[in-house]
C-alpha cells in the first residue's frame, strides 16, 4: 500500500477516483438510457465542458492559494462581447490577434482582482463579489444594451465551435474542445514543472512557512488572478464562438460552475493540493451527471443547480473531515498549537489567503 503513497502524487488519487466515477456513470447511463453513448451526447458535453473547463483551470490556480474568484463569469461575458464588437468593426482581424485580445482583456480585469486581494488585502470573496458586479456594469455600459449576433462576426468564429478538426465516425473533435484540452495540458505542466506552479502549492499548503522563508506570496497571488482572468478571457472567446449571440447576461453562472468543477475535482478548498486535470474531470463529471440524471430519472433540467450545490457541499465537507483526520494522523503528539515551543515561528493567521 505504501508504494501507492510513494509513486502517486496525492492529487492523482483523486483524479483516478474521478475517472472511476465517470466510467461508472457512463456505464449506468449507457445501459439505462437509449442512445446515451452517442456522438451527439459526446459533442454536447464536450462543447459545454470545454468552456467551463478553461475557466476552471484559472479558478484552480486561484483556489490553490486559498482564494476564490467569483468574477470570472463577468470576465467571460465582457471578453466575449468586447471581442465580438472588435471583430465586427475589423473583420480582417487575424484569429490569433482576436484570441490574444480576449486574453488580454481578461488579464487586465484579473489584474484588478489581484491587486485588490494581494496588495489591498481585501479578502478574495469580497473583492470578487464586488468585481462580479463592477465588470458586469462595465459590460452593460460598454454594450449600450446592444447585442452581438452571429452575423456580426466573421464566419470562422462560429466555425471553431462547429467544424471538426477530425472525426471518428460521428464523434467530432472540434477546435474549441482541442483548445480546452491544450490549455489543461499546458497548465498541468506549469503546475507540475515550473517553480511558479510549485510555489502556488507551497503558499496554499503552509502560508506561514512560505512567508517565513521569504517566498514572494503577494506577487504569486497576483499572477494567479491575472492568469485566471486571462483564461476567463479565452473562455469568453470560446463562448462567442459557441453561442454567437452575446447579451449583457452572457457568462452569468460560470463562476459557480467553475468553483463546483474545481471543488469536485479535488482542489482542496484549504489550498495546497489539487490539479487542473482534476478540475477538468470534475467539470466533465458534473456535466455528465447533469445530462444523465435528467434523461434517466426524467427530472427536469432545473434539478441541475440543486445537484450542483449538493455536490459542492459533499466535496467541501469531505475535504474538511478528511483534512481534520489527516491532521490528526500527521501530528499525533500535538494537542493544540498553544505556547509549546516559544522559539518556533508564531502561526495565527486568518484563512483568507495571502
Amino acid at each position, binding site marked *: 500500500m505504501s508504494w501507492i503513497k510513494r509513486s502517486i502524487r*496525492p492529487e492523482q488519487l483523486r483524479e483516478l477516483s474521478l475517472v472511476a466515477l465517470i466510467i461508472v456513470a457512463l456505464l449506468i447511463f449507457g445501459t439505462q438510457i437509449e442512445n446515451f453513448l452517442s456522438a451527439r451526447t459526446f459533442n454536447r458535453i464536450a462543447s459545454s465542458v470545454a468552456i467551463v473547463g478553461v475557466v476552471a483551470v484559472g479558478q484552480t490556480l486561484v483556489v490553490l492559494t486559498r482564494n476564490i474568484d467569483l468574477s470570472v463569469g463577468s470576465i467571460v461575458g465582457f471578453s466575449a462581447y468586447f471581442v465580438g464588437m472588435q471583430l465586427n468593426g475589423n473583420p480582417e482581424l487575424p484569429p490569433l490577434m482576436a484570441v490574444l485580445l480576449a486574453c488580454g482583456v481578461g488579464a487586465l480585469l484579473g489584474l484588478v482582482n489581484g491587486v485588490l486581494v494581494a496588495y489591498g488585502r481585501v479578502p478574495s470573496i469580497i473583492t470578487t463579489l464586488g468585481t462580479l458586479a463592477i465588470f458586469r456594469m462595465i459590460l452593460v455600459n460598454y454594450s449600450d444594451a446592444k447585442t452581438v449576433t452571429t452575423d456580426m462576426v466573421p464566419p470562422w468564429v462560429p466555425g471553431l465551435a462547429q467544424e471538426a478538426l477530425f472525426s471518428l465516425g460521428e464523434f467530432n473533435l472540434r477546435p474549441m474542445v482541442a483548445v480546452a484540452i491544450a490549455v489543461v495540458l499546458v497548465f498541468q505542466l506549469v503546475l*507540475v514543472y515550473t517553480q511558479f506552479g*510549485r*510555489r502556488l502549492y*507551497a503558499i496554499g499548503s503552509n502560508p506561514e512557512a512560505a512567508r517565513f522563508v521569504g517566498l514572494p506570496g503577494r506577487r504569486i497571488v497576483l499572477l494567479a488572478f491575472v492568469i485566471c482572468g486571462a483564461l476567463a478571457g479565452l473562455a469568453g472567446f470560446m463562448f462567442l464562438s459557441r453561442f454567437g449571440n452575446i447579451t449583457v447576461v452572457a457568462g452569468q453562472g460560470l463562476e459557480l460552475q467553475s468553483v463546483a468543477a474545481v471543488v469536485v475535482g479535488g482542489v*482542496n478548498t484549504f489550498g495546497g493540493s489539487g490539479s487542473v486535470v482534476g478540475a477538468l474531470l470534475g467539470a466533465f463529471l458534473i456535466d455528465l451527471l447533469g445530462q444523465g440524471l435528467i434523461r434517466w430519472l426524467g427530472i427536469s433540467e432545473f434539478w441541475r443547480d440543486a445537484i450542483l450545490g449538493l455536490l459542492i457541499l459533499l466535496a467541501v465537507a469531505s475535504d474538511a473531515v478528511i483534512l481534520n483526520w*489527516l491532521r490528526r494522523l500527521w501530528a499525533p503528539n*500535538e494537542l493544540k498549537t498553544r505556547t509549546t515551543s516559544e522559539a518556533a515561528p508564531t502561526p495565527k493567521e486568518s484563512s483568507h489567503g495571502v
Partner: protein
Amino acid sequence: MTASTLPPPTLEMRAISKRFGSTQALDGVGLTLYPGEIHALLGENGAGKSTLIKIMTGVHQPDTGAILLDGSPVKIGSTIAAQGHGIAAIYQEPMMYPDLNVAENIFITHAGRGPIVRWRQMQREAEAILKQLDVQLDVRQPARGLTVATQQTVEIARALSLKVRVLIMDEPTAALSAHEVAQLFTLARRLRDQGVAILFISHRMEEVFLIADRVTIFRDGRLISSAPRADVTPESAIRAMAGRTVEQLFPRSKTVTDELLVSVRGLGKTGAFEGVSFELHKGEVLGFAGLVGARRTDVGLALFGIEPADSGELLIDGVAHRVRDPNQAMSLGIAYVSEDRRALGLSLPMSITANITLPTLRRYLSALGLIRGRAEAVDAEQFRKRLAIRASSVEVEVSKLSGGNQQKVMLSKWLNTRPRLLILDEPTRGIDVGAKAEVHQMIDDLAAQGLAIIMISSDLPEVLAMSDRVLVMREGRQMGIFSRGEATQERVLGAAMGQEALA
C-alpha cells in the same frame, strides 16, 4: 580541544541584551559557536534561550551587543537574512509543506533554481543529501504522512542543502522515541564532523551529556557558565541553573485544612500526559513545577473539561466525576485561569466588566435575556477594589490595561464563578514585581478562605514560595510530589529534568 587549538568561531554573540516591555529577557549574554562542535544551551523557562534563538534567526533585533559571523560583524535583519548567512533552525514542530513531497520540501525555499522544475534532478539531489546524512528515505512521498522524526530529518536535509553553517536544534527530541533520538544524534554528529556549528537546546540532561561538546548555562537572561562538557556534571549544571539567592520566601499563612476536596488517580490523556495522581485539601496550594513540554497545562485543561482526559479518575468530595466540558466543570466548582491571557483568557476589545461576567453571564440576565448592566457593574467594581485593578473605570477596554491588571481581570473573572478548585496557569507571567506580589497575596488569601488551588508555574522561586506541596511533571509524566520542607530548587529542577533526587 584546548583553547589554543580552537578554530576561529563561526558565530559569536557578544554582550547581547534584549528587553520586552518590563522584562529584561537577555542581559549582556555572550555565546560562541565553533565549527565542528555541538554546543548545548541549558536553562530554565524564561532563562532567555528562546529569545537568543530568535535573535540568531533574525526574528528579533538585539537592543545592544554584536553578532559576528566568521569574525566580521553582521546584522541579521530578517529570517531570510539569517538563511542567507547559513543559519538554520529546527524546532519541535517541523515546518513542512504537507502537500508537497520530500524532495520539494527540501528545495522549495531555494531562490536560484530557475523557473523550470526538474523533478528527476531534484530527486537525485535530495537523495544525495540524504545519503550524506546516511538516511534512507523515499523522496517522492508527500510530507503529510511522515512522522515528526522523519520531518525533522527532512528539515536538516533542507538546512544542509542551503549550505548551513550554524544549525540550531531547539528541543528537537521532545516528540521522538528513544530510537529516533539516537538516529537524530547520529545525524547531528555527522553534521558536526562536516564542520557545522550546532547549538543544541534540550531539557533532557542525559541527552545533553550524551551529545554535547560544550555546555553553556543561562539563568534569568544572564550567562552563568560556559565550559567543555568534560568540566561539567549534571549536579553542577542544575546548581548553576537554579542557584539563585532566594531573597525572601513569601510568608505563606497556615491555610491547609484536613478536608479533602479533590482526589485524582491515574489521570491520563493519550498523546498528552499519563499517570497523574494527587490529593488536594481545602486551603492547600499545590504547585505544578516542570519545564516547557512537561504538559502541565494539559492536566489543567483536562480537569476543566476543555480537553477531557480519557483515563483515570477524579473525585470531588468523594464523588467520582467525568469532566466533559467547561460548563460541567464550572458547576463542579472548578475554574481554570489560562496561561495565555491575550489569546485565550480575555476578550481584548471588551470592557473589564464584560470580561469578568463572561463565564457567569446567565447570572446577570433578566427574564427577557437582557443584560442587567448595573448588577454587572456592581460585581465588577467589587472585584476592582478587592484585587486593586488599576483602571479609571470598569468600562475600560482590557486591551488598554497593563499585563498585571489584565491578569487581575482574568482572576476576577474566574473568582466570580465561585470556584472551590482554582487552577492557575502561570499566574504571574509577564507582569511587574508589584503586581506579582499582589497576586501572591491574593492566592494566600484565597487559600485562607478555603479554596483548593493548583498553581502551574515555571518560575521556580515562585513555586517554592507559594506551594504547600510541589508536584513535578516531566514530558507528561509525574515525577513526584515534594512537601514544602523537602522542596529545594535543585531537587525540583532535578526531578523536572529527570535526574535522581539530589541532596
